[in-house]
């Protein structure tokens, strides 16, 4: 039971943290932020590797490997494409002008 309570605590605190960290985003960055958040949930790759690594039947292994491929596309592609977008946001005038409060 204490394990479940601990996980619940993690969940609830993560909700608040998730909202808190992006609450001051400007609309300029909505697209890269969405793309970056998208890449972060690609970490389901960890889960895919775990289940594929424990697969006992060929069927389970195949499903697990498909999950690994899909999760990797999500994670790697997501971070690369976000970086490509953000690469274009880096002129010096720009960064000074768009400085956020409390960043």
């Amino acid at each position: 039971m204490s394990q479940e309570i601990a996980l619940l605590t993690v969940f609830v605190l993560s909700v608040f943290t998730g909202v808190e960290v992006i609450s001051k985003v400007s609309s300029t960055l909505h697209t890269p932020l969405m793309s970056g958040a998208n890449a972060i949930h690609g970490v389901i790759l960890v889960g895919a590797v775990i289940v594929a690594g424990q697969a006992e039947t060929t069927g389970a292994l195949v499903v697990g490997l498909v999950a690994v491929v899909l999760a990797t596309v999500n994670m790697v592609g997501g971070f690369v494409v976000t970086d490509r977008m953000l690469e274009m946001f880096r002129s010096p005038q720009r960064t000074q002008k768009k400085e956020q409060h409390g960043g």
Partner: protein
Amino acid sequence: MAEVALAAAAEGASAGLPGWVQLGYLVAAICFIVALKGLSSPRTARRGNLLGAAGAVLACAITFVAYDVDNLALILLAVAVGTVGGVYGARRVQMTQMPQLVALFNGVGGGAAALVALLELEELSALSEPGLVALMATAFTVLVGAVSFSGSLVTFAKLQELMTTRPVVFTGLPVLFAVAILAGLALSVVLVVEPTNLVGIVLGVVGLALGLLLVLPVGGADVPIVISLLNAFTGLTVAAGGYVLGNTLLLVAGTLVGAAGTFLTKLMADAMGRSLFNTLFGALKGGSTLGATQASDRPVRSAAAADVAILLGYAQRVIVVPGYGLAVAQAQHTLRDLVDVLLSRDVRVDYAIHPVAGRMPGHMNVLLAEAQVPYEQLKEMDDVNGEFKQADVVLVVGANDVVNPAARTSPGAPIYGMPILNADQARQIVFLKRSMRPGFAGIENELLFDPKTTLLFGDARDSLSKLLASVRNL
């Protein structure tokens, strides 16, 4: 400080794994939190993203070492295949196609989560007493992961224009949707009581159907909001998957994205003046079927490039309203050249950027940044809206819905209530348009028929090149 409390709690939760593994996951989780924080400010965004990537790589490396991973060669091969695919897609995509690529990446992530949960179900069903919460989390992951997968593929198809961008509504759709939701809930209960593979697979299929039914009735202009919502869904499925696996990192990362994504969805819906409910279900009420797909044959005033060049070249104040059509024609660079020539003639020129210009909030900023338009020339809607009254000419390039006064005046229109750029207050308005086809939202724009409006027909790049040549010759 929520971050510190979270970090402390996360440390206690992954019982059963060696301490160094838990610490490594904790470091990865902190990377993700700092990454999201960084992504919300332009100064730190790129660093934030790289930090997130570092956290993800660390988490995967730890997993390979800490867990007993069989079939290592095959799994590494699968990772290699996914990496090549992801990098290829990410490098090849044009900036205009960014929204659909994000949708696609999100969809495969949701699909992966659903498959992971299906495999965990097999493990759980082998236990004599699988935990109730774990089974509920499994059902959630399978169902919502499948919704995210199929829903994202439909948004991809809509944005890539593989299918119509207009809302797809047919008789019985609301009933079918309700039936699918009830079936999903009922099967979830069955799965908790009777955890078998078959129930899991059927639940996944119902989820796929539900995703289709959820996104089909959404009109093209609202699709970005749906991508953001599905992104949040995938985050939550990853969190639930983390619970099932007893993996704190997945729980933290998924929940962060779920919460941030939900909040972001709300921000976007607010920027478009739409409620989330209306976005998803507006078409079912018959609200957005007003639109015209046919080109109108009402009279408009059109002009040649040379005439428009005179308007622009002798103006004192010009505001450019760029839209998605500009990017489709790959005309950002030509536009920048035209603006530079006007600036050299001492014309004051600004770009007015609507929050949802392009196809996703912030999309136009990305597109213009690609063409190296100086940041100071980009004005956000709230800053520029008061200045249209002083503008001699507003040059609307490939935009339509974001200057459509119907958003203020026609309560029945699908874009009613969306904040728009006050282009109609300028002395002259020039539209560069390919044809009289309505915009993405599928509604006619009264501003095109305004006596102050001049249209210059043609591909945006051709028209801008001609304008550029003509202004240079003035």
